[in-house]
C-alpha cells in the first residue's frame, strides 16, 4: 500500500485515527507516571477484556453506519441472544447447539431489521428503536423478567488463552476487527456497501442491488451481536433481559469518535476500534486513579464529548 494521501488528507493529523492514537498514548503515559500499575501487562489485558463486548458490537455498528444504516437495537438484541443461550443450556441442550441457536436468533433479529428497513425505506434509527423494544420484550417473556445464570458452563471461555495471557474473548474481538476490516476494504461486497453509504442513488443506478445488500449487512451485524452476546455471557456468567441496553449507544459513540459519520460512506473500522479502546483506557485510568464512581461517569461523558468535538475539527471552521 502506498502512503500517498488524497488532497484532503495532506495533513496526517486530520486523520481521526492519528489523533486518537496520540490521545491514547498520552493518556497511558500520564496515568502510568502517576500509577505504574497502569502499564502492567495484566492491566492492559484487563482493559482489552473489558472492551471486548463493546468492540465486537462496534464492528457491527461501524459496518452498518458506513453502509448508510444504523441499528439501535443491538444492545437488546445481544441480551436476547444471550437469554436464548441460557435457556437452551438450562433446558439441557448441548453447548454447540445452544450457541448455534443463539447466533441464529440474533441473525433472525438482524434479518427482521434489514428486511423492514430495506423494504419500507423508513429511517433505520426509528425502526430499530422499535425493534429494540420487541427484542427486549421477547427477552422479558422468555426469562419472566429475572436474570438467568449460566452455572459456569461458559467458564472455559475465560480459561482459554493465547500464550497464557491473551484470553479467548479478546482474540474474538481482534478477529472481529480483522474480518470486518477485510470485508469492508478488500471485498466487492465491502466496497459496494461503502458506495451505497456514500450515495445510495448512485449505487442503485450503478446496478447494485441495494435492498439485498442492506438486508445482508443487518444479518451480518446480527451474527456479530450474537458473538458479543456469548462473550458477554461468559464474562458475567449470567444474563438479565435489560443487561444489553446502553451498549448500542456506546458502540455508536466509539464509531463516531473513530471517524465514522451518520451520513455514511466514510470512516474506518480501525478508527472505530481505537474509539472503543479510548473509552476502555479512560475507564481503567479513572479506576486506577481512584476516582469516585459517580464522578467517573461524569468525567467519562466529558471526555467523550471532547473526543467527538476533536474528531470533528475539520468541520468546525466551516460556517454552515
Amino acid at each position, binding site marked *: 500500500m502506498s502512503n500517498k494521501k488524497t488532497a484532503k488528507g495532506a495533513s496526517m493529523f486530520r486523520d481521526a485515527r492519528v489523533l486518537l492514537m496520540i490521545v491514547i498514548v498520552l493518556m497511558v503515559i500520564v496515568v502510568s507516571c502517576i500509577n505504574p500499575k497502569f502499564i502492567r501487562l495484566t492491566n492492559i489485558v484487563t482493559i482489552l477484556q473489558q472492551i471486548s463486548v463493546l468492540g465486537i458490537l462496534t464492528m457491527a455498528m461501524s459496518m452498518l453506519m458506513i453502509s448508510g444504516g444504523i441499528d439501535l437495537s443491538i444492545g437488546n438484541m445481544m441480551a436476547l441472544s444471550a437469554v436464548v443461550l441460557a435457556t437452551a443450556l438450562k433446558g439441557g441442550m448441548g453447548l454447540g447447539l445452544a450457541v448455534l441457536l443463539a447466533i441464529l436468533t440474533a441473525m433472525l433479529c438482524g434479518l427482521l431489521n434489514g428486511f423492514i428497513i430495506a423494504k419500507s425505506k423508513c429511517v433505520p434509527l426509528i425502526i430499530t428503536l422499535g425493534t429494540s423494544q420487541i427484542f427486549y420484550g421477547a427477552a422479558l417473556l422468555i426469562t419472566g423478567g429475572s436474570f438467568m445464570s449460566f452455572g459456569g458452563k461458559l467458564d472455559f471461555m475465560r480459561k482459554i488463552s493465547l500464550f497464557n495471557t491473551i484470553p479467548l474473548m479478546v482474540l474474538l474481538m481482534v478477529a472481529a476487527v480483522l474480518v470486518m476490516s477485510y470485508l469492508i476494504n478488500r471485498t*466487492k461486497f465491502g466496497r459496494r456497501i461503502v458506495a451505497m453509504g456514500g450515495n445510495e442513488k448512485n449505487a442503485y443506478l450503478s446496478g447494485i442491488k441495494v435492498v439485498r445488500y442492506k438486508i445482508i449487512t443487518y444479518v451480518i451485524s446480527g451474527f456479530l451481536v450474537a458473538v458479543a452476546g456469548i462473550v458477554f455471557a461468559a464474562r458475567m456468567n449470567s444474563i438479565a433481559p435489560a443487561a444489553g441496553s446502553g451498549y448500542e449507544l456506546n458502540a455508536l459513540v466509539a464509531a463516531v469518535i473513530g471517524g465514522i459519520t451518520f451520513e455514511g460512506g466514510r470512516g474506518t473500522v480501525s478508527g472505530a476500534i481505537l474509539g472503543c479502546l479510548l473509552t476502555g483506557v479512560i475507564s481503567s485510568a479513572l479506576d486506577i486513579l481512584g476516582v469516585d464512581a459517580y464522578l467517573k461517569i461524569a468525567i467519562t461523558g466529558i471526555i467523550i464529548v471532547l473526543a467527538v468535538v476533536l474528531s470533528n475539527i475539520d468541520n468546525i471552521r466551516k460556517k454552515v
Partner: protein
Amino acid sequence: MVKVDFMAFDYTNKEPVIKMDGIIKEFSGVRALNGITFDVYKGETHCLVGENGAGKSTLMKILSGAYVPTEGTITIDGKTYTSLTPRLSKELGVDIVYQENDLVPTMNAVENIFVGNEISRGGLIRFDEQLKKVRELMGRYHVEIDPMQTIEHMSVSDQQFVKILKSLSGKPKIIIMDEPTSMFNVEDAGKVLDLVRNINQDGISIIYISHFLEEVRKIADRITVIRDGMVINTYFNAERNIPFDTITRDMVGRPVDIFYTKEHNPIGDVMFEVKNLRLTHDSPEINFSVRQGEILGLSGMVGSGRTEIVRAVTGADPRFSGDIYINGKKKKINSPSDSIEAGMAHITEDRQLQGLTLNASVLENMLLVGLRNIKAPFHYNCKKFTPKISPIIDELRIKMPGIDSEVMYLSGGNQQKVVLGKWLFAKENIYIFDEPTRGIDVNSKADFYKAMTNLAKAGNCIVMVSSDLPELISMSDRVLVIRDGAVKSELSGADINEHKIIKEALGVEKK
C-alpha cells in the same frame, strides 16, 4: 419563439455606477485575476462570459465582498474602495442571485423572499403584509408565479424567479445573475430575458453570467469576455447581432465551432428497441429503435418527459408496460441491475446526486459498475485496477490531483468524465446519456463529443437526451421530439435544425 424588445442603450454623457479598476487577485501566489477593469452603467445589462475557471466568479466574489482583491479599486457611486465586505457590498446595493439553490424547500415563495428580512410587528410576522409586497413586485416586473406555493413543489424555473424576486425585494442597484437560465427550458428562458429587460427599465443594472451565447446575444447591452483572469474584449451589442464566432474565439483563444462537426459512421442493423412503452396506465405509448453506430437524440422542453422515458427504459423508475429488445431478443429489465446486465449504460442527468459517490476516489467511482465483471469471489483490491482505469482517464483527458483523489474536488467537467469513464470501464454497448454536458466547459464538452463519436464508431449505439440544441443537432443522426410524454415527430438529415425542433417541441403549429 419569444421576442425580446429592446432599445439600444445610450452611453453618451453617462458615468458608470460601478467601476472595478485594475483588479488583481492572487491565491497563494497564483494569479486568478490579472488586472481586470470592468464597469456597469445604470440600467444596463452587462454580460460576462468566459470558460469555467476564467475568473468570472472570482471577480464577482470581489464585487460582493467575499474576496479581498490583492490590488485594484472598486468605485461605487463615486466612492472608491480598495475592498468590500459582504455587508458593505449589500448596503451599497450589490446583490447576487446564485446558480445553486439557496431557497428553503419547505417554505413558500413569500416566506423565502423575506427570510432574514421579515416584516413583523412585536416579533410576529405579518404575513398578509409580506404577501402584498410580493404581489406588488410580481406586478411591477411582470412575473407570474404562485406566491403561496412551497418551493419544493415549484418547477426549477419558478424557483429561479423566486430568487430574482427575493433579490429585487431588497431594492438593489445592481443584480449579479450567475447562470440564471442554465436550468430553464427554452420558453421559460424567454421569460427570464423579458424580466431582465423590465429590471433594467427600472434603473437597476444587471451583470449576467451565462454559458448560453444565444441568450447573451439577445439581452446584452455589452459583453465582456474573460480568459485566464484577463479581459480579452468588451463588445457593444446595440444591434443584438454580435457574431458567436467572435465571442467563442475570445473565450478559448482559438476559433471553435459551437456546432461540433461529427464524423458520420456507417449505421448497421437495429440494436436496441423499445416497444409499447407506457409509463402509467393512461400515458401515451412510446416506440423507438436505435441502430448500431447510430446516435438518437431525444429533444423536448424540460418536463416534456424525456428523462422519465429513459429512466423507465433502464429500470431506474418503474413503468406500466413495455418491452425492450436488444439485438432482436426480448430482455427482462426491471432494475438498473438488469439493464446493466443487458449491456445498457445510463449516464444520468445529475452527476452529483445520481452519478457519483462524491467522497470516494476517482478510481473507486470508475470501478463501481465494472466491478460486476471482475471475477473476485472474495478478495478484491481496487488498487490493482489502476492500470486498467488509467487508459480511460487518458482517453477522456480527466484532470485530477491523482487517481486517489475524492471526486468532490474535481471540476464539473471532470466529474462528468468520471461518470462516463465508469460506464466505459463496464464495457456496455448501449449508451443512454441524459443531459451529458450540462454545466461543463467548452473543452470538456469537446472531449465528451469525441468520446461519444468513438463509441458510435466502435459499433455501439447511443440515445442522448439534451436541452443543448447545437449539441443535439450536431451529434444526432436522428432526433425524436418529445412533447407531453409522447414522441411527436422524428427528424433526420436536413430536418434536424433548431427551427424545426423548437416548433415541434412547443407544438406551435397545432395552435
